[in-house]
């Protein structure tokens, strides 16, 4: 079967959605990070988070995460009333450990992505996304 890029993206989006786990409401970011890390030290490197520097629309901000070798990636919006955004889980047959989605941001804030690797180690990266009222570039 010949897959177009659009179809592949659609399938990826659907898979990402199914893998999104409900997280308990109002959990603090610190709790969520501690639960995810499961006691492992949090390192850097091996995870890429792509997000716009300035959101074109704070209600739907495209982000993507990529962490080769990860079994799970968690995304947090640190400035939202509910910081938990989603957690992607990757099985052993996953062709790549990356995902794209769109998230809602209440205002300018850091978005954090954590990845749990196959060996149990955990890495983190973050990006600041500015949500602006705009209107005066010229």
């Amino acid at each position, binding site marked *: 079967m010949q897959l177009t*890029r*659009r179809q592949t*993206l659609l399938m990826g989006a659907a898979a990402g959605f199914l893998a999104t786990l409900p997280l308990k409401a109002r959990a603090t970011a610190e709790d969520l990070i501690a639960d995810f890390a499961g006691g492992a030290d949090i390192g850097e490197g091996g995870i890429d988070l*792509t997000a*716009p*520097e*300035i959101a*074109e*629309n704070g209600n739907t901000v*495209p982000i993507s995460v990529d962490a080769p070798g990860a079994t799970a990636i968690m995304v947090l919006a640190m400035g939202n009333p509910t910081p938990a955004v989603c957690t992607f889980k990757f099985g052993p047959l996953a062709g790549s450990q990356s995902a*794209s989605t769109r998230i809602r941001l209440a205002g*300018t804030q850091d978005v954090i992505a954590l990845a749990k690797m196959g060996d149990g180690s955990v890495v983190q990266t973050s990006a*600041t996304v*500015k949500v*602006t*009222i*705009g*209107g*005066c*570039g*010229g």
Partner: protein
Amino acid sequence: MAASAIWGAGGLGQWSRLAAQQALTQDDLLGFDTFGNVSLVHITDVHAQLKPIWFREPEINIGVGAASGQPPHVTGKDFLKLYGIEPGSPAQYALTYPDFVALANAYGKMGGMDRVATVVKAIKADRPDALVLDGGDTWQGSYSALKTHGQDMVNVMNALGVDAMTAHWEFTLGIDRVTEIVENELNFPFLGANIFDNEWDEPAYEPYKMFERGGVQVAVIGQAFPYMPIANPGWMFPGLSFGVRQDRMAEVVAEVRDAGADCVVLLSHNGFDVDRKLAANVDGINVILTGHTHDALPEPLLVNKTHLIATGSHGKFISRIDLDVRDGEMKGIKHKLIPIFSDVITPDPDMAALIDAERAPFEADMAEVIGQTDSLLYRRGNFNGTWDDLICDALLKQREADIALSPGFRWGPTLVPGADIRREDIFNATAMSYPNAYRSEMTGEMLHVVLEDVADNLFNPDPYYQQGGDMVRVGGMGYRIDVTRPQGERITDMTLLKTGEKIDASKTYTIAGWASVNEGTEGPPIWDVVETHIRELGTVQLQPNDSVTVTGT
């Protein structure tokens, strides 16, 4: 090797206009020892100025973070010293603000696309296959461009022989018009590696064009203004997403290198500081032709083996860049920023005829004299300009508001004291597709949020979070700004000028402004408001504006 030239001799300050102009010749302005095997000709941010204009460069142009005190954030005497420019010289007039009125009288207007055509033809006589590249902000900014939806500029740039362009204000014509022009009318590609379909996140325009020149492959990558849907009305081009997209740029550079590019040129509308950071972070770009922030620099700035070129705005300059490209590498560069002194460079007759034909249907309307000015009317500068002081006065009076807001656009030519204000001059400062002068209410708290938001777009220490305009201009209210503070803490002491009282966060004020990015904004077009005001005044006489106090510079 790197070499560049600043034209002309100096020391002409007190000479008569005739003597000053006799000291400048077209041969001096165009003189260039052809070098290497590839020539680039860069023009950008013309803002639809077909005829010569005055344009005063900024007095205040603050750099923050890594750009603090670095070009292009150097003005006036510091600029003269940095580049070794003689006081009173043509270079001082073209590149800086001191003695602007006296020097404008001596050296006359600058620009004019018919003069630009002469320069392009002269360069092509030296190097017939020179690449002519337009950095965008071309189809907006004048009466005739507004009335023809950019058609006058499209016709002129086709006739000029442009080889590729990128864009910003072009999209404020609306996506349907842009598509019509790009698909049916432009003789050259419209490039934007960072323009994506926002539903599928797929490239929406050609990212680059490969040219064979002088036996080598030159890749020209386009980068449109990254913050289109934020700084301008996104509803006018709803299917598109922009952004700096640094990773995408690195991918495109790798793609063109894989495709055989010996030399990579980025035709950018990022703004200078964004390009400075991009050059530091993305390897493999030989030359960035910068745009958007309207800076003119007499020498390239070298960042991580990338030469940044800044060619100014409004048709006032052209950059010629000759490159020596051999064995898949750039071995040398030679650059000259050519100032278009309109009284010195002979207009190209074919282009002059085309321009006159494009303007003819509107000539009578444009030429109507609305009033006179005793004051220098300019816009460029981080905080205020006299054109915007006049626009804010018009909004306060004609729209009966407490406070007026005028956007921090960097486009709009200058008028010197004693000049007539023609209708064309008002449009040169206001012509765009969302001109409605609104009247609304805002709390003091909301006003503070607006000012903080715009200030962060200008003074965020990370250039990728800047949008490249100047600070919103305010009438009827003063404030203090500390540019070194984070967002939310920069703006203090907001004061309502008519009472001298501090702005109360919970109190509601009547605000008049224009250029709202919100769809359905109501009110008369700003040019009508300004025209009515100038007619009432007869002669414009502005008082010095000291309502903004700036610290932390």
